[in-house]
């Protein structure tokens, strides 16, 4: 019986989350820059959580909540708002982690086109 030993073989490539402004020439370059900076942003958020620096993570979530939508990523804004709420309402760490995961998953999928 043939088994699939490589777990990545069955893994679907993640759906790209394309900016709703992908075809807007006025801010195309800005969106590209925003997407290009995303891995760094995600790293900062993860690091803040690992260090237990919830104040920094809250600031990060706040920035994403207010900013991402303007770059055509409303879904990221919504999930970032959930993360911010989880922190400000002092939810348990696992809930905050879950909320963080929801945002960063979307961030990882962000694409300018």
């Amino acid at each position, binding site marked *: 019986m043939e088994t699939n030993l490589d777990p990545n073989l069955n893994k679907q490539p993640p759906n790209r989350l394309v900016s709703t402004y992908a075809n807007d020439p006025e801010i195309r370059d800005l969106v590209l820059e925003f997407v290009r900076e995303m891995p760094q942003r995600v790293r900062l958020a993860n690091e803040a959580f690992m260090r237990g620096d919830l104040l920094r993570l809250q600031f990060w979530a706040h920035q994403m909540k*207010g*900013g*991402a939508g303007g770059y055509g990523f409303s879904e990221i804004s919504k999930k970032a708002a959930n993360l911010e709420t989880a922190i400000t309402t002092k939810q348990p760490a696992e809930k905050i982690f879950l909320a963080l995961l929801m945002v960063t998953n979307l961030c990882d999928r962000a694409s300018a086109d």
Partner: protein
Amino acid sequence: MNDTNLPTILLVDDSELIHRLLRVRLQNERFNLHSATSSVDGLLMANSIKPDVILLDIDMPKMDGFEFITRLKSDPETQEISVIFVSSANDPGIRVRGLDLGAVDFIAKPFDIVELKARLRAALKTQNLIRILAQKAQIDGLSGLWNRSYFNKRLESEFEGSGRYKTPLSLVLGDIDFFKLTNDRYGHLFGDMVIERFSNILSGGRLCDIACRWGGEEFAIILPQTTMFQAFDVTERFRAQLANVVWPEHPGLVITASFGVCDIENSELPPNPTNLFLSAEKAMYRAKEAGKNRVESFLKIVDATK
């Protein structure tokens, strides 16, 4: 570079992402955009640049948008600035609170840029109308000059500026001679024409001078950065211009005015707007007593009594 003729927008938001976005999104609009990334900096900038409209975030550290607008609206220097909240807060209670505190509009983040531009344009238009109305309320209907209430405020502020920057400030009071007689003999319509003509002469002087109708046939001109001696020359020109007007309705008629001039340096002590006014008024009465159609400075009175 900023175009000083264009309206000014100040964006106060702690998100660099928003600043970056709006700098690009609004780059082709006909206004100057200034940025502050904290509410504290925003208040300082609002005071110094006096923007037409502030786009204000609510959720900011140290001082949130509500405290910002409360401070802004309690300062006479900044209370007329229009504020539009731009926030991701969805709670209607938050929107209502913002509007109750004096905001003119509320835009939800993430915003639609076309809507944001349209709301900005609407706020600028309203702001402009308010400014025109406020200005009209301070203009005398007949003469087209600033009215007495504006004069009082403006004299106060010019006096303060003069003290701060150590610059001279003069005040001229003028009164049309025999105006009641003119009215009685030639009618009030002609009297109005005299007021209008005299007002044209007074407002046709230097651009920096502020000509006001004090009331009836009395006028006041504030001359910033002008010594009494310079003001005397300016006033002498006003006097001569009026005396030389030819009145086609009444050929041969000569209408004149008497003037009193004073500056802060020479006014009665302690120096304040009231004493500057009283000193100029005394000089004007002296001009009346001395035969009318003349300019007297307050210094001359002091010298004469020595």
